[in-house]
């Protein structure tokens, strides 16, 4: 049973074939609890695909089923949006209140939850993103990483089955980025949420269960990170660069040094080259 099943999705923002398709026949499935990274350069169609998943753009051609709901039916749109929460690139664009706990309560309250239940949810999601104690703070005065963690908490407060992250770390400083990646790792390991992560950092895609590579509105390839991210030819066709560790693997190989496997992170590379005794 898939939580997301896209079949031959096509989309043109100009609604004309001559203007070209932003999505050009994408078929894709995602399993519940899976973390899928969608990797592609700017303009490859990854954001358009992400926006299909909670029907922020109407389905023009092809089929899309999210949690068993047909996205082409207007009556399903709100149910699908409840199922798929989305976190965007710029944390500043995602707040509705000037107090953290009010911001987090906004979603559940709109769905008519009682005050006590909302308070409990707010407490839980703040804990989930490691931000307990920030209830009364103003989201706008937090650091980039903290803001983005609150944005994730805001989505978690609606308890969606799927979390879509559209380049959610692109604007963060190194520390903020690590903070957000840590939350994502935790959610991945928890196995309760399905995660769809849009990125053009091959290094980040390495943490997913599966990586799909997009270019020109099409899916160029997909597979486990170790297969996809080590496929230089595929990444090259997609206009992407391999992680530094993969680059090192091939540079070592050219000098006649074979490592037991292709490392995806610099940590793995260090472990292979000089294991801790």
């Amino acid at each position: 049973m898939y939580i997301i099943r896209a079949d031959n999705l096509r989309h043109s923002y100009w609604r004309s074939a001559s203007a070209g398709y932003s999505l050009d026949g994408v078929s894709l499935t995602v399993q519940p609890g899976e973390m899928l990274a969608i990797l592609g350069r700017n303009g490859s169609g990854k954001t358009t695909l992400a926006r299909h998943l909670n029907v922020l753009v109407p389905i023009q051609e092809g089929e899309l089923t999210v949690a068993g709901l047909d996205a082409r039916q207007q009556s399903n749109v709100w149910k699908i949006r409840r199922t798929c929460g989305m976190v965007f690139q710029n944390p500043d664009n995602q707040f509705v209140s000037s107090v953290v706990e009010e911001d987090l309560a906004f979603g559940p309250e709109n769905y008519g939850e009682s005050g006590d239940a909302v308070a409990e949810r707010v407490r839980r999601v703040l804990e989930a993103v490691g931000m307990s104690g920030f209830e009364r703070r103003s989201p706008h005065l937090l650091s980039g990483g903290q803001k983005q963690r609150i944005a994730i908490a805001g989505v978690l407060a609606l308890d969606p089955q799927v979390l879509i992250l559209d380049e959610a770390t692109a604007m963060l400083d190194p520390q903020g980025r690590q903070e957000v990646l840590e939350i994502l790792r935790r959610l991945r390991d928890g196995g309760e949420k399905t995660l769809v992560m849009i990125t053009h950092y091959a290094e980040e895609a390495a943490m997913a269960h599966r990586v799909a590579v997009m270019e020109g509105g099409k899916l160029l390839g997909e597979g486990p990170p170790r297969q996809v991210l080590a496929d230089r030819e595929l990444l090259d066709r997609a206009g992407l660069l391999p992680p530094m560790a993969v680059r090192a693997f091939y540079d070592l190989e050219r000098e006649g040094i074979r490592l037991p496997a292709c490392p995806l992170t610099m940590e793995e590379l260090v472990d292979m080259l000089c294991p801790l005794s």
Partner: protein
Amino acid sequence: MSLELREVVLTYAPHTALECRALDGVSLRVEDGEFVGIMGRTGCGKSTLLQVAAGLMRPAEGTVLVDGEDIYAPGYRRSRLCERMGVLFQYPEKQLFETTVEREVSFALRHTDLTMAERRERVCRALELVGFDYQKVREQSPLGFSGGEKRRLAIAGVLAARPGILLLDEPIAGLDPVGRQEFLALTDRLCGEGVTVLLVSHNADALADHARRIVILENGVLAADGPVEQVFSRREELARWGVSPGQAAECAEQLRTRGEEVPPDVIRYGELLPYLLRMGRRRER
């Protein structure tokens, strides 16, 4: 063009509960044709520094000199500053609003006394610099482009004015790796032609490859200013300032903690590779 900040102080919301000293006595001199990377954690004052340098926010104290002239002095001709400074704000792709690419990119030229032919020539050249075919895109709507393409259009709009100083606020965040390389190659090229570049970024790998000098701000104070190799080798302080020296430097540090001898100024992949090879060969034996 040279740029100099002398003891600049800027306070947001002064005399209120939200008072915040964003720049606290910053002095900095950037010479003609220099490429300076500006780093520091979110909220350290990087964007404020650029805006003060661009003549957009008058500092409470201190002076800002462009080619030796105080840009906040009474009588200084602000219009001249606009012609000489190219400012790229964060998310410049959000600023596009014109109906065609040609109108968008030529917007800054509207109030100059250039002829139509000169304007067209500048727009054409600026679009080429960022990798667009003028004839192909000139009549298109900028709003139909992808995020990364819009970014390049916004840059073209800045370049069309042929600025002598480029102030770039996080121009590569959100660009894909190839787009990032292309953008940095372009700034390198402009720099080679004598344009002074100040570039704010969290991407240490990119700055190590392109900037020769790094300035780090912390809480509105200039924490470090020096050649990139020197600044990036101050590991303990970097951690305190919230700056990562980049993947290659981080890897070199891990190797050091495992007893490998790797000099502290190894900050680029090309410099790291010989050490990786040395270890690989040892492992083979």
